[in-house]
């Protein structure tokens, strides 16, 4: 069964550094999402992407964050200058049709030191 894949599985970065989290959505999917889950807390929506542009974003997704679909397969989340509070598990998700389930990757654990 097709899967959403995320790399790296774990990223350790110094505060203030830039990080890029990578996702390969399921190949025929059209809608892409990033969520995060701070340890012990609920999953929170960051941003959704459709037709090569952001379709929705939360208040968490401030100017430090950006997303890109540089080619036909990758979907990236960039955090420009990381803060301690950015430490979390980041999940990518995709879906083929808007009324279908969102399929999640295994996540990238981001640790900011």
């Amino acid at each position, binding site marked *: 069964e097709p899967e959403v894949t995320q790399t790296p599985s774990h990223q350790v970065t110094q505060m203030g550094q830039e990080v890029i989290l990578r996702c390969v959505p399921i190949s025929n999917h059209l809608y892409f999402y990033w969520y995060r889950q701070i340890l012990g807390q609920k*999953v929170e929506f960051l941003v959704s992407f459709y037709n090569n542009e952001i379709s929705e974003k939360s208040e968490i997704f401030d100017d430090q964050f950006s997303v890109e679909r540089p080619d036909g397969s990758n979907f990236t989340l960039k955090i420009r200058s990381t803060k301690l509070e950015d430490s979390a598990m980041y999940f990518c998700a995709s879906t083929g*049709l808007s009324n279908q389930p969102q399929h999640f990757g295994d996540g990238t654990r981001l640790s900011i030191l």
Partner: protein
Amino acid sequence: SQQGEEDPQALSIQEGENATMNCSYKTSINNLQWYRQNSGRGLVHLILIRSNEREKHSGRLRVTLDTSKKSSSLLITASRAADTASYFCATAPQAGTALIFGKGTTLSVSS
């Protein structure tokens, strides 16, 4: 803002017993989805139920939706130790929009 809130927060049962988890939300939805998360892993989709549906089944899983009460339940029948995980409901106000997750129910099934 709307939320999915599950109860109970934690549930411990013996293998073979049924587990019921409930979810409440605040505003209108297009669909409601249930996910499972094993410790340290990603979210695995279980069932999606649309606002015009009342019940769905998938194997040992049964989901109900009551839009008048803004609530849903997930029933796992004949539970197994492998069902031990956290279970989340997530609501979508419209098709394709962001999912709003609840805090989850942690299910422990002992053999």
